[in-house]
């Protein structure tokens, strides 16, 4: 017995989720298999959250072809899916004459990639735009169409809307075997022993895309994790920069950036280091020093004492050096692999590209008449009302749902109503709730709200406190009850 689908998407990061949402427009059965306890828990959650203008990519590459169309789709997506997105613009800043020459190279690249409104700016204009920049700046390349989003909220909203339109999501479902049955359909098995079958498999497995491809006998590429460390600064210094600030890049990375986030706090990073281990998410002393020494060259007032947390993302860098998109020598097995920067920006365009591949591969795609592009609103963010002193609106909200007046995370002003909504929507881990609501992301780093969030998860999802995890099985927070039945104080 196995569940039969038209398409199985393996991996639910931004790429898998964008594909799932695109396919949910059509009258087909789609399953998404995610190995982690929640979506976006792999590379996507550690993404810098930049919607790039598109001047970095080498003209002619898949990256260059999809980055500008991807960027263009975000206004509409943001409107439909209601995730935070702001077109702040990005500046590549030059500090020497050599740098200025390189700016010109990127300017021509951008022009070739059809990046709109690109501009080369002189020193005074740059300082006027970003007053905290090092005054030694000599000029900048400005892409006003670049933006910032919250990568995991984007991912959550894509998959939520896909689910509202019929896509089935399976969490904690690590694929352990793929084969074909006698009617030439794929059989996919997960570690837990669940079986699925489908005519098409889309490999959006990020870091593990090479291993998934190996299951069907393909070894055309290898994925090497490229580690990036990022450091998040206190809300207090959230006005350091208004736009995304880049240095002139080196050969292996875009360099250390100073990144405003849609949630307010500024982020600095990421490093870029090729490593062997796909599960090495450790930050390092060397990484910290590299990030801050480089970031301080651009914005001298950045200080390590403002760090509230740090994290690591592993970019799925492939041996191909470009996005690996499309059909393979195995009929029906389609890759969406090697999606490193600017993958987030390109993701909506990647989704459409994959849809077109499916059409060419003769999957019948007929639009649903009842496709609902608007995501259902899960909850109202109380923080936005409080920050803007919209107390009357808040009063109204509380009259509708009392839980909106129970503040759980006071650093980020997240209420019980928001957390309950997130848990009921399937976020059953502390990290899942954190990414969905921001509870625990603030300056106390969940020092106060952890027990209260755990109580809500326990109550709403029926999980005993000792079984509640940070990020999936094996990461239980308080695994040992002192004595049986002593759960309520």
């Amino acid at each position, binding site marked *: 017995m196995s569940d039969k689908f038209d398409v199985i998407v393996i991996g639910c990061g931004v790429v898998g989720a964008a594909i799932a949402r695109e396919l949910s427009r059509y009258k087909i059965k789609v399953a998404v298999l995610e190995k982690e306890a929640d979506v976006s828990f792999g590379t996507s959650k550690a993404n810098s959250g930049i919607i790039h203008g598109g001047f970095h990519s080498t003209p002619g590459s898949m990256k260059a072809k999809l980055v500008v169309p991807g960027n263009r789709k975000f206004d509409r997506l943001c409107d439909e899916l209601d995730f935070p997105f702001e077109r702040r613009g990005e500046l590549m800043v030059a500090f020497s004459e050599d740098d200025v020459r390189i700016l010109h190279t990127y300017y021509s690249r951008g022009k070739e990639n059809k990046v709109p409104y690109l501009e080369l700016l002189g020193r005074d204009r740059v300082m006027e735009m970003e007053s905290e920049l090092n005054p030694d700046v000599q000029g900048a390349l400005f892409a006003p169409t670049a933006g910032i989003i919250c990568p995991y909220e984007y991912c959550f909203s894509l998959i939520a809307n896909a689910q509202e339109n019929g896509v089935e999501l399976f969490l904690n479902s690590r694929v352990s075997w793929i084969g074909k049955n006698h009617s030439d359909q794929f059989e996919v098995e997960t570690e837990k022993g669940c079986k699925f079958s489908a005519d098409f498999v889309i490999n959006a497995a990020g870091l593990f895309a090479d291993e998934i491809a190996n299951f069907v006998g393909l070894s055309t590429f290898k994925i090497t994790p490229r580690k990036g460390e990022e450091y998040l600064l206190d809300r207090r210094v959230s006005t350091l920069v208004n736009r995304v600030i880049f240095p002139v890049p080196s050969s292996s990375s875009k360099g250390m950036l100073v990144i405003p986030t849609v949630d307010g706090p500024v982020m600095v990073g990421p490093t870029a280091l090729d490593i062997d281990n796909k599960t090495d998410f450790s930050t390092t002393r060397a990484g910290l020093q590299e990030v801050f020494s480089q970031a301080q060259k651009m914005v001298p007032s950045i200080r*390590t004492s403002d*760090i509230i947390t740090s994290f690591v993302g592993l970019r799925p860098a492939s041996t191909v050096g470009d996005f690996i998109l499309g059909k393979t020598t195995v009929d029906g097995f389609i890759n969406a692999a090697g999606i490193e920067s600017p993958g987030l920006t390109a993701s909506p365009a990647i989704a459409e590209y994959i849809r077109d591949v499916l059409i060419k591969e003769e999957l019948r795609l007929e639009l649903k008449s009842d496709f609902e592009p608007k995501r259902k609103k899960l909850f109202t963010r109380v923080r936005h009302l409080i920050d803007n002193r919209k107390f009357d609106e808040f009063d109204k909200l509380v009259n509708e749902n009392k839980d909106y007046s129970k503040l759980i995370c006071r650093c980020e002003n997240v209420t019980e109503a928001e957390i309950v909504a997130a848990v009921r929507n399937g976020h059953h881990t502390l990290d899942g709730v954190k990414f969905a609501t921001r509870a625990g992301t603030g300056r106390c780093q969940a020092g106060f709200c952890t*027990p209260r969030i755990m109580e809500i998860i326990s109550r709403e999802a029926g999980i005993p406190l000792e079984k509640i995890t940070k990020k999936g099985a094996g990461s239980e927070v*308080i695994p040992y009850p002192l004595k049986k039945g002593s759960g309520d104080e």
Partner: protein
Amino acid sequence: MNKIVDAVIIGGGPAGLAAAMSLKKNGIDKILISEREDYLGGILMQCIHNGFGLHRFNEELTGPEYAERYMNFVEEADIEVYKNSCTIDIIDDGDNKTVYMMSEVLGLIRVTTKVVIFAMGCRERNRGNIAIPGSRPAGVMTAGLAQKMVNRYGYMPGKEVVILGSGDIGLIMARRMTWEGAKVKAVVEVQPYPGGLNRNIVQCLNDFNIPLYLSHTVTNINGNNRITSVDIAPINEFREPDIKEQFTLTCDTLLLSVGLIPENELSQKVGVILDNVTSGPLVDANLMTNIPGFFACGNVLHVHDLVDFVSEESETCGKNAADYIKSCLSLDKEIPLKPGHLVRYVLPTKVEAGKKALISLRAIAPAEDVTLYIKAGDKVLFKKKHKKIFPSEMQRIVIDEVPSDAETLDVLFE
């Protein structure tokens, strides 16, 4: 909902309770305590060990017993308390202040008041603040959070424990976890001297043979889902970890006791100016902040090591706030206090001429055979010999009458 009172106290921990008691005793009736938990007493309620109250009550009490003394007064005096109520914003209109609270039961509340007393306490420094390298597994938490999990919820975070930082909560938790059957393998302290009180080093570590590694730090956290080990290295003369001497301890839990930060985000929202050293509000001799009608006391003002001193300070603060409400708060001539040799900070930064003054201070580094002086010019107002001083031990001094002719008071060790 709207409400009018004379004084709003933000926080129902030891500071808030003592301030409320003192306001009441000084003739103020319309008092409101806003407490965000569903119980009063604050962090004391998770401190089930004893050692509280020696100065205040000449008795050794547990945290909840100590809190109860004040809670009983608050209850008997009919002081209004909003539990499960979080203050989210304050707008200062001069004579009146509007405090916005969210309450589970009452929804949004707008309280108009003459006085606001900040008594929010502090939060623990966390892993992010000190940027410990390594992975981000479960099993890494602050000592205070672990204390709450064990003492109030009845759950142990793990069985093989390393503690980074020798602050008092970390030391207390070393003993607590040991009592509950855990193996505490080490307490690691970056400084060459302990961060907590000497009595806690003796009673919580030495009595259980728990090793204390001074001048060491955690250089790496290992493990993916759950922490599996930590790397520890000594600190060399350049104050950097000496990686050559690094060693690894397996563990399933790392507790952090690396300092406390006064929680002043709300105070800053109103425009209160903070002191760079204490991270608490800059206050005058009356414990009033730079904005008239806003007072601060307890750990939100500066981190204390004994709750007894929190209560004492907060009662003084409550009395001053009562005087302010009755328009008889005097501040004739303020005399600045100047921290001198070996003094990290003095609080308050000014005292009032001709009045009694209560002065708190901390040393900047450990020292032996020193004498603490408070001088007005050449005149010695206070003098006390110390065999040993530690930054972890706050000094508390009463000057009965500050001389009116003094220009400044120098506070120093010699």
